């Protein structure tokens, strides 16, 4: 019978946190600019997300209509010369009644200068939306929503996936067969479609969007964890643990789980960007967070209606926020993956 001491020697050495940090740092040096940029953006976004209620200049859900659709602070006013006519029909005409309010002595046929868009104001740095709400405040609060959705989604999805995957990989046999066939079914159709079906079945709101995305996400983790624990199960240190009479639950908890956790965490880091995009997509089509909550996807959906009128800032800044967050997480994910697995280093972006 193998003694405990011997079987401890057989166990693969777990990489300590300091080695991890060193590898990540080495990665930083290698891709200095990109990783540095991503960490800067992430700190910025996480910071604003956490401190949102204290740092945002205005209430994100309240605005004054007199401030509506103001452009960003650095944009000047836009004017156009219009012909005064009886009833304004085309964009280059203005009705006499309106013109009279601007200049009392106009007559039909005059050409006058009309302000078609006010200039930006310094108190609304990124402009305001159609209800006069400050865009900067809404984007700051949106960071909070976005980060919560992404982390809870991956947490729930990862938890379900890891548990089920451990069961499938460790026990094998019919348990494995049933679990893998169920994941096959879940993986066999487009994730967004499943999320749409689930979210509309449960009713569109913040929590159901999280649940819907988590439910489409777990099979990927199940596959990953199953493959890992399948090979671990055959390793000598597990057999040794069996030999000295350690029960299944303890083996899974003490020996298998710690060894599958690294790939799961790496995968989760790689997935955050996609989770943020998926959540924003659900909000955009009206199945996620509901107005008036400041959610980046909702803000783009509102903003798209004003783009045709040249009011680009409502959609632009919230989209830029999603883009930068997803980009930063994807870059970080690549860095973490490289630190965890030297073979993929520089293989592709």
């Amino acid at each position, binding site marked *: 019978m193998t003694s405990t001491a011997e079987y401890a020697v057989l166990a693969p050495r777990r990489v300590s946190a300091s080695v991890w940090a060193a590898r990540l740092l080495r990665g930083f040096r290698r891709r200095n600019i990109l990783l540095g940029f991503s960490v800067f953006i992430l700190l910025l976004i996480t910071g604003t997300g956490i401190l949102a209620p204290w740092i945002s200049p205005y209430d994100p859900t309240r605005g004054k209509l007199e401030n509506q659709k103001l452009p960003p602070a650095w944009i000047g006013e836009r004017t156009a010369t219009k012909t005064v006519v009886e009833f304004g029909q085309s964009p280059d005409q203005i009705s006499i009644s309106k013109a009279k309010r601007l200049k009392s002595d106009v007559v039909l046929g005059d050409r006058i200068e009309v302000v078609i868009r006010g200039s930006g104001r310094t108190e609304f740095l990124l402009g305001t939306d159609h209800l006069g709400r400050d865009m900067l405040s809404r984007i700051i609060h949106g960071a909070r929503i976005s980060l919560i959705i992404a982390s809870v989604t991956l947490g729930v999805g990862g938890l379900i996936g890891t548990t089920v995957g451990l069961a499938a990989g460790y026990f094998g046999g019919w348990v494995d067969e049933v679990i893998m066939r169920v994941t096959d079914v879940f993986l066999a159709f487009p994730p967004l*479609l499943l999320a749409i079906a689930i979210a509309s079945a449960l009713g569109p709101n913040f929590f159901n969007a999280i649940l819907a995305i988590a439910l489409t996400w777990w099979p990927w983790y199940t596959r990953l964890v199953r493959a890992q624990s399948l090979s671990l199960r055959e390793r000598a240190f597990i057999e040794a643990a069996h030999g000295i009479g350690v029960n299944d639950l303890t083996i899974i908890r003490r020996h298998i789980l710690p060894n599958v956790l690294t790939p799961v965490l790496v995968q989760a880091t790689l997935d955050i960007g996609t989770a943020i995009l998926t959540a924003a997509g659900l909000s955009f*089509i009206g199945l996620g967070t509901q107005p008036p909550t400041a959610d980046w996807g909702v803000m*783009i959906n509102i903003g798209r209606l004003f783009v045709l009128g040249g009011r680009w800032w409502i959609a632009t800044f919230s989209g830029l926020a999603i883009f930068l967050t997803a980009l930063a997480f994807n870059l970080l994910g690549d860095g973490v993956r490289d630190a965890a697995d030297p073979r993929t280093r520089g293989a*592709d*972006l």
Partner: protein
Amino acid sequence: MQKFIARRMVVTVFTILLVSLIVFVMVRVSGDPRTLLLDDYASIEDYDELTANLGLDKPLFTQYAIFLRHALVLDFGDSVVDEQPVTATILQRLPATLQLGLAAFIFSLVIGIPLGILSSVKRDSVWDHVGKVVALLGQSLPPFWLGIMLMFFFAVTLDWVPPSGRFEWNSFILPAITLGWFTTAANMRLVRSSMLTALDSEYIKLARAKGVSESVIVWKHALKNAIIPPLTFMGVTLGTLVTGSIVAEAVFAWPGIGLLAFDALRQSDYAMLQGIIIFFTLMYVGTSLAVDILYAYLDPRIRFA
């Protein structure tokens, strides 16, 4: 081979059943259709009659069986909004979605594959960097935002193409880029990494040692093997094109099934929504089944696995 196909078919059938179950539950929990269909002056008798007509007096399991029987012949009832048969409306919108999907697919092949080849052959060149940026943008750009930004620059500001709708050929450009963007980046990454693996393999070294010209090595020896991973990925590609159409069509008011789904979601038209979700699922699992079988025929390693 038969076993592989049989297995895939079983999974496909269960997938469709699972979707139909979700859709069935979705419609049941979304509210009582009787309150929508009857007005305030309806009597108890009207109410009972409608209950019987809709089969709501039967047990849930029987209701599901009836739903499945109708779904088998693609009968999803009438839209709550315009009271037209759901299937007819979907079929009428189908050509627009297929055309856009095809345009996006072609865009992703024409841009993605050559860029992947270039960036793998000329490593660390300008092309390689362009390829890396495209790959990163493909993963990180929200497609709906990309669409809106393209619309703002090329349609509103520059006025080169129409901002929305389905008219002449130039109205295809922006929606196709929006829809195909993710796929382009994915194709590029897959081709690049499988080309790098292929170019590093022993048979390429042998070909080089024999003095085979570089163009023959790249185009004949390496590419032939490197093109298989993107082919397997085609199932996933088609899936993203199907679901991506909801967002792309919504942004550009493209009159296809995606826009129909977007409108149905906003109007809570669950009859329409269940039809579209099942239709999309059928389209997707059907094509990915076909791709998998085709792939198994092409690659003996799968056939005999």
